[in-house]
């Protein structure tokens, strides 16, 4: 088990950073989707949902090409950070953000749509600016959406495999996450270690999901 520790720590680190970045990116995106009247909305929604249906290898393949130091983005990153995006933790974070985006955006969008215009009108009428109203009214009323989105994004990132394999490879201590370590154990017929990791993933995923559902029960829908 001790040899698995670096993979576990790396996985948790990756999932935490990814979830935090997704909160920052996903909240405004979900807010925009919940409120926009543009006719391009279905297109943006479809692009956001695309990682749900695409094979992870497809996402991983395109990201790998994008991360290539010869490409514009990959090259810029090398010049700025002094390291390549491919086969690095930074590359894994970017890949995970894209891969888990729908798990952040969709619960938030649903929550924002459920809150609706009425409490925002009330807040504005009482002197709250739109940003103030978002923080003081919409966010608390969307608490369930934030809990669901955060929990799902975290655990979905923990469970990813294909994208990581394509973009990050399998570098111990650098890009080898739990799901890939498990794959290695199976390849080398080390079933004992594979069992330990597999069971650990099941337990971790179940715990997070139970926690999400429990917390959502404790905080019933406020809006309405």
């Amino acid at each position, binding site marked *: 088990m001790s040899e698995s520790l670096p993979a576990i720590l790396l996985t948790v680190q990756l999932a935490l950073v990814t979830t935090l970045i997704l909160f920052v990116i996903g909240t405004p995106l979900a807010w925009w989707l919940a409120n926009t009247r543009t006719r391009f909305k279905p297109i943006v929604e479809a692009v956001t949902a695309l990682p749900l249906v695409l094979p992870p290898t497809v996402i991983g393949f395109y990201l790998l090409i994008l991360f290539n130091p010869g490409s514009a983005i990959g090259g810029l990153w090398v010049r700025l950070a002094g390291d390549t995006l491919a086969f690095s933790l930074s590359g894994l974070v970017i890949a995970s953000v894209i891969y888990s985006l729908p798990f952040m955006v969709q619960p938030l969008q649903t929550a924002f749509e459920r809150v609706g215009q*009425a*409490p925002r*009108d*009330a*807040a504005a*009428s009482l*002197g709250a*600016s739109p940003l103030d109203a978002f923080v003081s*009214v919409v966010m608390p009323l969307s608490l369930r959406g934030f809990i669901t989105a955060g929990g799902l994004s975290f655990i979905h990132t923990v469970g990813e495999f294909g994208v990581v394999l394509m973009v990050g490879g399998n570098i111990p201590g650098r890009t080898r996450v739990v799901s890939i370590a498990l794959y290695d154990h199976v390849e080398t017929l080390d079933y004992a270690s594979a069992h330990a990791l597999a069971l650990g993933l099941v337990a971790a995923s179940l715990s997070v999901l139970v926690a999400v559902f429990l917390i959502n029960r404790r905080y019933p829908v406020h*809006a309405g």
Partner: protein
Amino acid sequence: MPDRTLDIDLDHRRGGFSLTGRASLPLSGVTGIAGPNGAGKTSLLRVIAGLDRTRGNTIRFDSETWQYDTAFLPAHRRRAPLVFQDSRLFTHLSVTGNLDYAGRRAAPGGHGPDRAELIDLLQLAPLMARRTADLSGGERQRVALGRALSAGPRLLLLDEAFSALDAGFRQNLLPVLRERLTHWQLPALVVSHSARELAVMADHVLPVENGRVGTLCPRDAWLAGSEGAGDTTGEPGAVLTGRITGHDARLHLTDLHIGEHRIALPGLTGLSVGREARLYVPARDITLALDAVDGLSVRNRLPATVAAITDRPDTAWCDVELEVARQRLCARITRAAAEALSLKPGDTVIALIKSASLAPRQD
């Protein structure tokens, strides 16, 4: 500052709905907004509150432009809180939290009560720690009103804000609230379908019908006009002015003199003797008798002279205009009854008043 006005010039078209017309509303006292359902009363308040950005409307608050062409002052900077028909309390906050929410955002220079006065006026003390989800409709309306008054308002917008209050509480609150609004120098626009509410609250009434803003008229004229109260609310009535002359603690009645005639009304014990008071008497709550009748539960009887009788075509009703102590009263009775009594102008009758609401004078 008697000359301050809220000027509106509306050319509001959205989907199949339009709201047009212009009016200049006094920024003092209470202006009622009356009209049938779907006429545009709520839309008018939303435009004034800044919750509807539809182009084509012009709103000027005294010397401030709130909306003109592309210029638009956002709702949160107008300090004109709207009390919504459905209250819209913040469900993630307690009652205290809702009041604090408004209080923290109140800008200096607004008008309104302090917290203690507010709690007393709206009887909020037992509600303060409660969750908003557990409140009844009437309790929600009280909190919503309190929240708007906590926001440091310069103009109060009320959209059927008293509809869920229980009748006894409303009867007590409206005259007192009316008086406090004057005291705070806080102008208010009150949307109501109840002529009774407007009679008690409003100084002027702006009729809105079919998406058209009508002509502002003094309340008494609106109540009397068949085009106003009668047709839009189905509840015509008239206002009688009298003086409070005493309270009967045992019977919980308040004596009121109209001219030399005395009537007694319940539920007004909070008002001091000697004050002048306005009574709103709905036309349907008046029964006419040719002679003094005994053995009736209706105790308020005023001698009156028939001034005019107006048939209401295609209905069973007619409106009898009466003169009582040099004041005007309107009774709605069936045509059959009018014919049976062979009423004609100049006849002397007894007006039996079943109920009335009180509106204190504002001065």
